């Protein structure tokens, strides 16, 4: 006997849970698989060299846009990872009771941590291996070239292409040729494999992160033989997130103006890119923390004035657990922030490029598709939080229903709880993203055209605010959130069943 819980026993104990534990593990496996797959695809795209391909997806043909694709894929991982994190709360009360029972049976706090971390790491590991398997199988299934048309992109060197092409003159007289070519193409970069060490690191990344997250989550929890005590902070910080958010947004919004005023050359310098990244992180942290403060503020403001029971219940829930709102909405708000920024970039690119060339428009449409997927994944995380909240409160809900509270009131309370903080935070995130894009890329574009004599003529075009796109982003986020939160109401029917009252 070693006197210590062995890993096999810890994993056996982790797997001894009920149905909600199975759901949690299954969701963690799925989320981890999607995240790992996205990271592997991102690593593949960044490994594409000029002589690889050709590919039917235009954006893969241009080396300069690979960074954008990788950023989009990594950003897609944010809601996916947040989703994995939110899945860790599914069935938490039942798991807490199980962990307390392990303590009662003589387990130490270290043993309990081992059971919790082991479960998260193994589930995420299975998902990561699954993601790798999908990636490898996908390479084989989609690996054979097909006959198709692709855009060959070549820098102009004075020799005109023989087939029709579009030329984009840029400053300095050097241009890019876009040539439509028909021939064998690959649908995806299945001819490229990232270095083995990169694959290994990416497959290990999410399981290690899941275990670390699980360990961190236990820091605020005392699991005694008599139950679980969560040390929750009730009052979220207000000043700090406001400062972080404002500093980030103002700095991003004035970035181009400041660099121009101080005549800072941004080409080929890493420092400005790092500065932008740091400012983006400041804004993001401010936004996520601010969601908690905003939820607490809205809850505290609305609850004493609420005339309708549903609004009263929702507002009190928000005020009592504002960090629950930031956990639920954090990933969604980051996605909206990035999405709004992307709409600003889109408006800028569309003004500065030839409208007859569909290349950039198609690429930007692809970015929008990624944003839509990210919003849906982030909202799915919200579903997990909402469903978990209902299941965790089932006794209280069943008692309310038994006392005559119509289920409709409880339904409206759940939806109101989701909508109250969502509207102001999504407006803040959209405003911040749009301001950042305009601040970084500018609000005007100087178009230079050449007449038949080769003389340049310049005119200044203003970059429009993409109101319609931003409106669609906010409205779409609200609608998707409402729809997905409505799915969680399915749990309400079973959670208000009188049989819940019999379970003491």
């Amino acid at each position, binding site marked *: 006997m070693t006197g210590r819980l062995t890993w096999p026993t810890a994993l056996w104990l982790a797997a001894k849970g009920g149905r909600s534990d199975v759901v949690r593990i299954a969701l963690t496996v799925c989320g981890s698989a999607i995240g790992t797959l996205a990271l592997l695809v991102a690593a593949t795209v960044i490994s594409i060299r000029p002589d690889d391909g050709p590919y039917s997806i235009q954006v893969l043909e241009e080396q300069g846009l690979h960074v954008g694709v990788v950023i989009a894929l990594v950003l897609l991982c944010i809601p996916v990872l947040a989703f994995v994190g939110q899945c860790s709360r599914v069935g938490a009360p039942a798991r807490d009771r199980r962990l307390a029972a392990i303590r009662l049976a003589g387990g130490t706090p270290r043993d309990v941590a081992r059971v919790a971390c082991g479960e998260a790491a193994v589930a995420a590991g299975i998902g990561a291996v699954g993601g790798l398997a999908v990636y490898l199988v996908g390479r084989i299934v989609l690996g054979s070239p097909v006959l198709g048309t692709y855009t060959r992109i070549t820098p102009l060197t004075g020799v005109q292409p023989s087939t029709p092409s579009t030329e984009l003159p840029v400053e300095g007289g050097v241009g890019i040729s876009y040539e439509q070519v028909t021939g064998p193409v690959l649908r995806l970069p299945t001819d490229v494999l990232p270095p083995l060490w990169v694959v290994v690191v990416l497959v290990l990344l999410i399981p290690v992160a899941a275990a670390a997250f699980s360990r961190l989550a236990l820091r605020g929890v005392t699991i005694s033989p008599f139950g679980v005590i969560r040390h929750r902070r009730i009052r979220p910080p207000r000043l700090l997130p406001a400062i972080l958010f404002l500093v980030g947004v103002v700095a991003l919004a004035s970035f181009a103006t400041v660099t121009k005023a101080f005549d800072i050359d941004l080409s080929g310098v890493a420092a400005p890119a790092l500065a932008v990244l740091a400012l983006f992180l400041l804004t993001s942290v401010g936004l996520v923390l601010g969601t908690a403060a905003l939820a607490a503020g809205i809850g505290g403001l609305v*609850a004493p004035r609420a005339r309708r029971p549903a609004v009263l*219940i929702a507002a009190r829930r928000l005020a009592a657990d504002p960090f629950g709102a930031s956990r639920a909405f954090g990933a969604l708000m980051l996605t909206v922030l990035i999405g709004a920024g992307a709409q600003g970039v889109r408006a800028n690119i569309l003004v500065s490029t030839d409208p007859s060339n569909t290349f950039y428009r198609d690429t930007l449409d692809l970015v929008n598709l990624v944003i839509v997927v990210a919003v849906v994944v982030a909202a799915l995380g919200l579903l997990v939080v909402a469903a978990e909240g209902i299941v965790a409160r089932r006794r209280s809900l069943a008692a309310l229903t*038994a006392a005559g509270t119509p289920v409709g009131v409880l339904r409206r309370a759940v939806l109101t709880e989701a909508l109250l903080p969502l509207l102001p935070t999504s407006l803040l995130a959209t405003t911040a993203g749009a301001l950042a894009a305009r601040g970084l890329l500018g609000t005007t574009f100087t178009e230079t055209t050449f007449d038949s004599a080769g003389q340049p003529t310049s005119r200044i075009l203003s970059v429009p605010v993409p109101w319609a796109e931003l409106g669609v982003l906010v409205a779409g986020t609200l609608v998707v959130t409402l729809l997905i939160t409505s799915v969680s109401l399915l749990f309400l029917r079973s959670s208000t069943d009188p049989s819940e009252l019999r379970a003491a």
Partner: protein
Amino acid sequence: MTSVTHEDPEVLTARSIVKSYGNSPALRGVSLSAARGDVLAITGPSGSGKSTLLLCLAGILRPDAGEVSFAGRRIDTESESVRSALRRREFGVLFQFGQLVPEMTAAENVGLPLLLSGVRRREAMTAARLWLDRFGVADLADQRPPEMSGGQAQRVAVARALVTEPEVLFADEPTGALDTFAGEQVLVQLTRVAREAGTTVLLVTHDAQVAAYADREVVIRDGVVEGDVVPASSSAGQHRMHT
């Protein structure tokens, strides 16, 4: 709204109620009635079916067979929304624990049934504070249930169950999670206020001391009524003197 008059001596009636959970019978033909203002204890060992009987009488569970009538009107055949409205307006329901909304203040919890019935917030909160005062917990009006002791929370729950001045109060082991002193305080106040208002109380308990607060004791065993007696250990009148 169903009004109960003095011409309806039997406010609640159950006839030959049968209820099973899967293959396990919980009630096997139970009949009983309660008159207006009765404090009736339903006692029996664990698993005897007493809580199931209470849930059937309150319209929370629908019996498999038999009839439940309130004020002469059959309620077991009514839709869930009608029974829900009945529980909101005519019945008060009290459980052992976990019935208060933990995020809401005591006053809001007590005022909730009034808000659900369309009473304006200001009036609902005023009434809630009055009821909290009647149960000696007015000073807890702005506190939330997790900040209260078990006895305090249960007194808030009793105030909530009675705030609509229901015809019948259904209480399932209302002192089961409390110590003897806190339990006695809750029972004394509950029965005093109910008697003042003429509210019928159906009290499920396995504790003979709790049953002693009742006028009548219906003993259930294995899903059938075994006896309908006046509690032996103490008279209701004696407990009335506590007030």
